[in-house]
């Protein structure tokens, strides 16, 4: 598994901390979109959305390319997966531990000697 350098992880987490930016990412899961299309459902100006997109871009979560006369934004799923993987290792440790603890307290309460 790839582990992101601290500063990249920080940037990604800071970017994901904002609900508008998470909603933008959710929008991009259905495919590439222009800035105007992305801004459309939000009750804020297009420059405000562009600012959010810049933060997502700096965090490596979104990439942009110019096509015809507009900028198209795309979700960088690989980076998002890195972030989720990072959280996943921690989660796995504790989920695995607690699954064992569940079984263990069960063996104790039924009076069986733990294997």
């Amino acid at each position, binding site marked *: 598994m790839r582990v992101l350098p601290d500063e990249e992880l920080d940037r990604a987490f800071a970017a994901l901390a904002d609900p508008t*930016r998470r909603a933008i990412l959710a929008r991009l899961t259905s495919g590439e979109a222009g800035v105007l299309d992305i801004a459309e459902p939000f009750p804020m100006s297009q420059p405000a959305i562009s600012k959010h997109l810049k933060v997502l871009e700096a965090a490596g979560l979104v990439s942009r390319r110019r096509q015809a006369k507009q900028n198209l934004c795309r979700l960088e799923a690989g980076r998002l997966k890195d972030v989720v993987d990072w*959280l996943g290792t921690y989660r796995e440790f*504790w989920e695995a531990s607690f699954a064992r603890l569940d079984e263990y307290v069960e063996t104790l309460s039924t009076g069986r000697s733990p294997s």
Partner: protein
Amino acid sequence: MSKLEIEIPPDEPVVIFHRVIRAAPELVFRMYTEPEHLRRWWGPRHLDLVVCEIDLRVGGRYRFVHRAPDGQEFGFFGEYRAIEPPHRLVQTFVYAGTPDNEAVETFTFEPVAAGTLIACRTVHSSIPARDAHVASGMEDGLTDSYQRLADLAAWLQTGISK
């Protein structure tokens, strides 16, 4: 099975989790503080807790070592700061791979209808220290892609519902 809830606040060096266990706080407290119990549950199944030394008094130390099937070992140690059975336990936590990062873990064990609500709040020395800690020492954990996808979906949904 009860769900593990993890919070990673973006702006403070903290990790918080909650989990319900079907046992009384008295028993859960012992599960956390007695080696013969810890050996049976602490860490994923494929890691053997080969060292589990506990000096359970305020200022006393503990030391755990996990061994992976390939022989690789992961050490953890710390010191007890507060021991208040059965409701509260405070200890420092250091992963031996990053000995400069000392975190402080506060566990609370609250009686609930289903048993005990375990809450753990871990405070790291800095946000990068937290991030490094969460990522380190657990690299060999196997991945559960479905859970991650579910996490990711839930995370993104919190943005949409606003």
